[in-house]
């Protein structure tokens, strides 16, 4: 059957939050494994990278649009480097970092922008960005839950566990392949938050695509080559 107890489309389950050390949002939290985050939150200061200057904590954000969290709004303004009122894949990439301080990869940023982009313009506005931050925080909580040894990244066995707990029945070879593709080359490869989000989002898209065809919910579909290509290409690119 399908992973019924798994994450709802688009968001991970709002299960129990991990313990205190991780904090509860983009606010500075002490300690390992994510290190001492610089001001601005565990994702690094907005626009961290080539931009100089301190960002401090969130500015008051007094002009936040209705319904938008002031902290998310001030972060939006910092990330929207060209002040266009929209955040592009490139701008988003600069704002998000993994536990090893690498910026989020292009694919994950693209997937997330597409998810929150209502205008199909390849960019998101402040409302989309605010929703995206909540989305990331939920995935981050889940990531930390599966990161049992608190290393800041997810190993082969942790990934197997994660899939199983999300309700997927996937082979060890599959997890192996994902690690080979997405982890740094090392004796014990593991994946960072960005790739974890990408993988989980793609699992959900693939499941949705399959479920759409499997009207009888039998777990099996008969596809022509053209249908197969169309299904995958329209959902996975």
């Amino acid at each position: 059957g399908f992973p019924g107890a798994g994450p709802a489309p688009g968001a991970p389950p709002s299960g129990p939050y991990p313990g205190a050390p991780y904090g509860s949002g983009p606010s500075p939290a002490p300690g390992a494994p994510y290190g001492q985050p610089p001001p601005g939150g565990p994702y690094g200061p907005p626009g961290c990278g080539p931009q100089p200057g301190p960002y401090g904590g969130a500015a008051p954000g007094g002009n936040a649009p209705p319904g938008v969290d002031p902290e998310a709004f001030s972060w939006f303004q910092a990330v929207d480097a060209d002040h266009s009122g929209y955040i592009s894949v490139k701008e988003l990439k600069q704002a998000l970092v993994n536990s090893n301080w690498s910026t989020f990869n292009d694919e994950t940023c693209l997937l997330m922008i597409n998810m929150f982009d209502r205008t199909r313009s390849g960019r998101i506005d402040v409302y989309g960005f605010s929703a995206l931050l909540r989305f990331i925080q939920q995935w981050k909580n889940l990531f930390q839950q599966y990161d049992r040894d608190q290393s800041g990244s997810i190993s082969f066995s942790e990934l197997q566990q994660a899939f199983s707990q999300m309700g997927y029945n996937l082979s060890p070879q599959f997890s192996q392949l994902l690690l080979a593709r997405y982890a740094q080359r090392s004796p014990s490869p593991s994946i960072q938050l960005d790739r974890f989000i990408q993988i989980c989002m793609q699992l959900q898209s693939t499941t949705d695509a399959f479920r759409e065809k499997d009207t009888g919910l039998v777990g099996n579909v008969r596809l022509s080559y053209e249908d197969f290509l169309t299904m995958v290409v329209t959902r996975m690119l």
Partner: protein
Amino acid sequence: MAFPGQPAPGGGFYQGGYGGAPGGPAFPEQAQDPLYGYFAAVAGQDGQIDADELQRCLTQSGIAGAYKPFNLETCRLMISMLDRDMSGTLGFNEFKELWAVVNGWKQHFVSFDNDRSGTVDRQELEKALMTMGFRLSPQAVTAITRRYSTHGKITFDDYVACCVKLRALTECFRRRDVSQQGFVNFQYDDFIQCVMSI
């Protein structure tokens, strides 16, 4: 296609300006292959290259010609296309295979890039894919051109990324189409693994 490092006239081992592997090449017949020079220059002791090294290797070899060098994500895709042992790396023979395939795609792309701009437009992309033998529905073509075009133009790099994905999907389907009728019965778990492996 002419690329730097043609064998010296009269045969013999030509080092292509990059030198052979330290201590000399492992297999004498590889040494005479001009491609070996590029490969050996970036491969480590294990004789394998990962995505970063592939990017460097392809850039140095000039396969992209007048076009910009490949981005890392495309290199990662190219490795996954041929990575039979799921190691995330390519050995020399796999690299040679990749080279031949990419060269073929390049010739094809060039034939559609009439103004030599390094890009093709949506209709040209659709034509190029059709002539390569991919049977795509209108929705699929729309999704592809939306994903891979910037301001209505598709670069060579993105074209290669697109070809790699379509080829991998086709292989995935074909391997399961036992009766060769153009239909496959997919189990859910197999479908996920198939699609996410590309």
